[in-house]
């Protein structure tokens, strides 16, 4: 079996079409166009943010693959935003670390909420988006696996659409005496592409990005909505059908011309 990845270019597309011709298309194509998490600050990449916003308006932009950190006081509401494009399945991981010396009296409950570009709350498929921290514990990790982002959805649905996604981290239950103590927060966002299975018809004219000071965009821009590996599957199927048709036709003709046809030696 042959695994073909990231057929975003015409060459790769041609290769894949060739593979389809030979009937060698591999399920690996489902992983097409997956944005690999970039390694930490390489050439020309903006450094990971070390501050977090305190409202939707001031949310700090984070790229998937970056680790954003922030120092804040317990009781603060920390906001980040990251871009998610059609076919992405994002995972948000947040870690809260309280200093050792902090004199906390009681436990606290921490939660991450994810909102889409129109500030609509998004559900987590799984993951622990809310956790309670015992009074003597220092760290807590929160996870939210988001639904697959669709290229288009009816306005009455709450399906995730391409655009900015906001993450809010806060303590939802906090003893009055524990408000205002310093803590460190870290946020990791990763996005996996689920491939053509999630390619729906229709597309947004523009991604849902509005009402915030920072603007987010995927590293290679928003997808144009015209490419899908469904083209290759369908084209490959047509080629296979044609080949099978020729084969089936040839079977009915036997090994050559029927015996006794004039012209045969």
């Amino acid at each position: 079996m042959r695994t073909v990845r990231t057929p975003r270019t015409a060459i790769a597309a041609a290769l894949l079409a060739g593979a389809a011709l030979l009937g060698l298309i591999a399920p690996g194509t489902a992983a097409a166009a997956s944005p690999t998490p970039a390694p930490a600050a390489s050439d020309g990449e903006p450094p990971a943010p070390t501050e977090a916003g305190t409202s939707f308006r001031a949310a700090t932009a984070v790229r998937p693959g970056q680790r954003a950190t922030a120092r804040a006081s317990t009781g603060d509401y920390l906001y980040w935003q990251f871009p998610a494009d059609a076919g992405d399945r994002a995972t948000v991981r947040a870690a809260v670390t309280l200093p050792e010396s902090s004199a906390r009296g009681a436990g606290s409950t921490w939660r991450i909420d994810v909102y889409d570009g129109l500030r609509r709350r998004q559900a987590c498929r799984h993951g622990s988006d809310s956790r309670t921290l015992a009074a003597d514990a220092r760290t807590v990790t929160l996870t939210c696996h988001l639904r697959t982002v669709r290229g288009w959805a009816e306005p009455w649905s709450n399906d995730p659409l391409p655009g900015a996604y906001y993450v809010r981290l806060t303590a939802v239950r906090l003893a009055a005496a524990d408000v205002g103590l310093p803590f460190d927060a870290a946020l990791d966002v990763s996005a996996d592409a689920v491939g053509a299975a999630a390619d729906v018809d229709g597309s947004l004219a523009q991604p849902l990005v509005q009402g915030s000071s920072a603007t987010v965009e995927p590293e290679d821009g928003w997808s144009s909505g015209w490419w899908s590996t469904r083209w290759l599957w369908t084209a490959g199927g047509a080629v296979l059908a044609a080949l099978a048709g020729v084969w089936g036709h040839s079977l009915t003709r036997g090994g050559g011309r029927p015996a006794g046809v004039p012209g045969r030696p």
Partner: protein
Amino acid sequence: MCGLLVTLTGGLSPVAARADAGEPAAKEAPKVELVLDVSGSMRARDIDGQSRMAAAKQAFNEVLDAVPAEVRLGIRTLGADYPGKDRKTGCKDTRQLYPVGPLDRTEAKAAVATLTPTGWTPIGPALLGAAEDLEGGDATRRIVLITDGEDTCAPLDPCVVAREIAAKGIHLTIDTLGLVPDAKTRAQLVCIAEATGGTYTSVQHTDELSSRVSQLVDRAAKPVLTPVATEGADRCAEAPLLRPGLYTDREVFGQHRWYRVEVLPGQELRAAVSVAADRPVHRDHGVLLRASTLAGREIVRGEAAGDGRTDVMSTGLRYPRPDVDDADTDDGKPAAETVCLRVSNSFSAPAGVKTTPGLPVELSVAVVDGPDEAGDPAFLGLGRGWWLLGTLTLVGFLAGLLWGWISRWRVTVWRTN
């Protein structure tokens, strides 16, 4: 080739989205005022072995060194001058130590060095004074209040003062820092911060104080979209007509606020709203944003419900208006449809919490080109998967076979004739 295409379209659309997403980022230099408590209690020596005043002075020196060049910074003191026992005079004791403007570091440091812990703690009057100092222009404003004790000048509740300042719609945020605070001070400072969308920090060490104040000043320096104040009406017919942008308003518990937006055929309306809980509220709450026609028919709604501690409840909606047929647009421009937006909330407050001014509402409105119509759940109706390939191959094979047989049969018929 594909990459280029992606870059081109990707580069264009967010820019266009940005253009009508609100006012351009603040051009005017941000203003910050540090309000420092210089009351008698600042003499207490409980921060890293030195007095609170010494810790504050040290922190101020570090902060003043690190202030970003674009920030206009001022310093105000409270309780710095009047050592006497008269409450009335003591509660007026607040003055501007260094005016809000481009910072002269040496001058500002020299001014701070002269301070000695003296008088009362008139937080409310100090906040009012600071808000006055920051007046004028359209800059983002931030007050950083550093104190070690609760306000001693009742009945003027500093928390109510803060909420009233915030309700003026001048984008003012108050961050509070409590030096070794007791429970009452903490509650009061948390209330002040909450009322203006600011933060509260409890300080036990000098380095915490300087790093936090620097962080807050840096935060003020970051360009932030400034929303435009508007006032929604009780009915759609009288509602203000909103153009794409970012707006703020106030909404009392249970109130309905109406706004209007015009949408041309083929355009999509996008609206997002956040209602902030800037005071103690009951634990269950919700927000409803509803788009309806002038006749009152609901088009689409966004709703959110939640419970527990929260800063805002937010929701949003999209309304893509279908393109009209060409035949209808022959007589000039297609008519814009007026969409009524209604914002309502189901917050409620315990008895004793002031309900006016209302809760802060932030409304983001964008009008963009409409999306493509989707005619099929799958991408352009194309298929994928092994079942598709198998089916196509099988059908192709059968078709070939059939075609072969038919042509053979025809040849046989031809030959026999």
